[in-house]
Every structure is written in C-alpha cells, then in structure tokens.
C-alpha cells in the first residue's frame, strides 16, 4: 500500500477575525483512510485547503511525507504529491473542456481511462459548465485517479460523493477506498465513512476521534 504520512500540529486557520480551525493536531499514517465529518462550517474544508496552501491565513505546521513548505519548490512538491477533489468544482469564469481537466492530472491516459470507467468518458470533449453536478464530480474523481497515476500519494477529497446518486456514491466510495494512497476525505456520506479506517469529527474548528 502506497501513501505518505500526514502530520499536522497546532494548525489554526482564520477567515478574517473568525477562527475556522483552531489548534488541530492530526497524525495520519501512510496509506490510512481517514473520514472527516462534522457540521457545516466546522472547518473541514478549510483544514483540507490549508494542506494545499490555498488558505492564506494558516498557522501551525503541516508535514506531508515529513516535508514542510518553506520554499516554492516544496509547495510545488506538496501540490504534486497531494491530489485534490475540490468541494465545489465550480464552473469557472472561462470554459474548460473535460479533456483539459483530465490532462491537468499529468497522467491524461490514466485519467481518461478512469473517466470511461466512471461513465463520463464520452463527455471529455464537452465544456465542464455544460455537465451536471454529478457528471462534474465524476470528472474530478477521474482527474484525481490520474493524479495518483502521475505520482500523488495523498488524496484530499472534499465531499467527493455529495452530488452523486446512491448507486454512484457506493461506486465512488469503492474507487476512493481502493486507491493506493493516504486518503483524507471530508464527507457526510455514511457509505464512504464506513470504508475508512478512522472517522474524525470536527466541531467549531476542533477535531476529535470518533472511531
């Protein structure tokens, strides 16, 4: 089983004056699958984004594979080694084709193959904003599989099954759980949480172990 360990110590993230994540300590062993649950606005998404450096007001230390992010090169390595499925795969300001999204995984062939398996292979020549929410989520899942094929060893997935139907949720959960990576997944989906080794709950920016 592949994967890198993720270690967070005293991670604090602010949105202006509001402290969205306060003093989170988390150790995820290499290859572990961890579900992050909790009410809306409890800081799950912010914590995930902090790992990728997308949240600017973040303090504390986050190490992936023992490596920090002091330099631009280390950030580049972090973003290569951590695949990301964003919560709201927002239809952007400008059109992007499905194939271009799959290409951005740096393993276009594997991503396209995954898209075909997930039933969205024929949509690759369509702009993303013309896809439905579920189709878009499958596209992003296929992209993440491509990222893993390109060498990512951690997958940070933010509600990756929220827009899928029940059958799709189960299938996507199987796919996510079978990837040879360390998985940190924000989810309200029981089926997905059940496939994880650990379930953590976030409340008001703090983290506690549930299972």
């Amino acid at each position, binding site marked *: 089983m592949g994967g890198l360990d993720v270690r967070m110590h005293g991670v604090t993230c602010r949105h202006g004056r509001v402290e969205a994540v306060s003093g989170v300590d988390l150790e995820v062993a290499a290859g572990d699958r961890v579900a992050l649950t909790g009410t809306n606005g409890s800081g799950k998404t912010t914590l995930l984004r902090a790992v*990728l*450096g*997308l949240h*600017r007001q973040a303090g504390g230390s986050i190490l992936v594979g023992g490596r920090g992010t002091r330099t631009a090169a280390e950030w*580049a390595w972090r*973003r*290569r080694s951590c695949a*990301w499925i*964003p919560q709201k795969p*927002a239809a*952007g*300001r*400008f*059109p*992007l*084709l499905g194939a*271009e*999204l799959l*290409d*951005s*995984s*740096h393993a276009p062939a594997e991503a396209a193959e995954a898209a075909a*398996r*997930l*039933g*969205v292979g*024929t*949509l690759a020549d*369509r*702009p*993303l904003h*013309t*896809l*439905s929410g*579920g*189709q878009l989520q*499958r596209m992003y899942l296929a992209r993440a599989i491509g990222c893993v094929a390109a060498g990512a060893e951690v997958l940070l997935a933010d509600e990756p099954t929220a827009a899928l139907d029940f*059958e*799709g949720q189960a*299938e*996507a959960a*199987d*796919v996510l759980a*079978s990837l040879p990576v360390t998985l940190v997944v924000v989810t309200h989906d029981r089926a997905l949480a059940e496939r994880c080794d650990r379930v953590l709950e976030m409340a008001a920016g703090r983290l506690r172990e549930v299972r």
Partner: protein
Amino acid sequence: MNALATADVGALLQLVPVQRAGLALLLAAVGLPVIGVVIVGLDIMPVRFAMMHVALLGIAVGLLTGLDPMLCALVACALAGAGVAPLARTPDGLSGAMGLLMSLAIAAALLLLAVSGVNASGAFALLWGSILSVGSPDLVVLGALAAVVPALFWWRRRDIGLLLYDRELAQCSGVPVRALTAALLVLVAVAVAGAIKLTGALLVDALTLLPALAARRLGSSLKSITLWAIGIGVAVNLSGFLLALWLDWPPGPVLVLMAGAVVLAVHLVSERRTSPWRAPASASLPSSH
C-alpha cells in the same frame, strides 16, 4: 445614385497611408483579440481606462524628466500590470484593482502635470493615435504583437486555459500561477497602451474587447474562443475599414460599431441556442470496479 457621398475605394487603396492603415489593422486583428480573450478571462474589462490613465501618468513623468514620454508610458503600464498581479488572488480582486489603479493614476498624473506646469490636454494628445497615421515603427510593434501574443498562447495553452478556468485548480495542477498571471497582465497592459497610441483609444475596444466578447459566446474552449476572436477581429476590421473608406467616414467609430453589432448579433443568436446538460451517452456508473 447613392445619396451618401461614396469614394472610389480602389483609388484610395493606392495611397500609402491607407495601405499602411489596412496592414496595421490586419496585424492588430491577429494579436489584439487574443489580448481581449485574456481581458475577458481575467474579468478586467476596465483595463483600457486604467491603462489610459496610467499611460498619462507615464507621459507626465516623461515630460517632467525629459525622457521619451511614450516609453515612460509603456513602462508605467507594464509596472502597473505587474503591480496589480498579486491582487488576482481573490476572484474579484483584479476588477476592483483596475478601478483603484485608474483613480490613483489619474490623480497622480494630474498632480504631476500641475507641478511640472505642462498642459494636461497636450499630454493627453500624445496618447491619441489614429489608424491613418501609423508609421513603420508602429507597424513593427503591431507585427511583433501579432506574432508574440498568439505564440505565447499556443505555447502555454494548457496553463492559460486552467488559469482562466480556476486559479486554485491551476495552482494545484502545477501551473506557475503567479508568474503566468503577472506575465499576462504585463502583456495586456503594454498591448492596450501601445494600441491606444497606434490606433486611437476608441478603436482599441473594437480590436481587443469586442471580438473576445463575441467569441466568448461562440467558442467552448480556450482554443476555439481564441480562434473565433481572431477570425471576428480580422473579418470586422477588414470589412469595416473598406466600408469606412467607401463611405469616407472615420474608421474608428465604424469599426467599433461593426464589432459591437457582431457582439449583439452573437448574443441574440446564442440566446436561442440551448445547451442541454444531459449527456447523449449513459451517465450511470458501470459497475466495473
């Protein structure tokens, strides 16, 4: 007989200034609509006004220091473009920044002009070009833009496509987001400022923004939008220029009105087109996993 006073277009086309203007428009129509695509993609429509004022500030600095005013204007625009790049972090940071830039630049320019005792309208006049008065150096600049801008777009098409779609996704896909944004903004700033000088302030919109706005509706990817923008730019500019010659009207307004008519027509047509989100093929998950 037509009521309008029409000219013999064939005879006019023998004139060197007219030939130069036609060539300038053709070159501009290749490079500048691509700049327009960036302007639409980064949502910085007020960039032309901002750059007019920043260029005025540069001219004021040039007049005060004795350096070449146009060079100062271009440098000022390049610096302003690079300076606002960090504001692209937030989604609406850039469009706000353009407004701020415009106010600050015009205030600083007027202050400088007042202090230096230069006539403000004289400084503004330096900024106004006309397509019928382009010289050989101007043609070289337009030619360089026509070559460099599409080439950069082709070379970096994946990165630019991701950046214009979603900055964070681009960042996580290994795109050098900061450097690329700064490079695009500098290119936009310099191209717009240069084009104002070469073609006149009004014509810049017909050459950059309007083809891109129409193309945004017609294309479904960065590549097709860019190609549409260039195609519309070339078609509108050449036909508009010939029309302006024929009717003996000033080319600037004719071209802007023509490009504007194309934008309106495209919007009306694409309103009627429906784009169903349902896939023709099955979208269900086959259980192959």
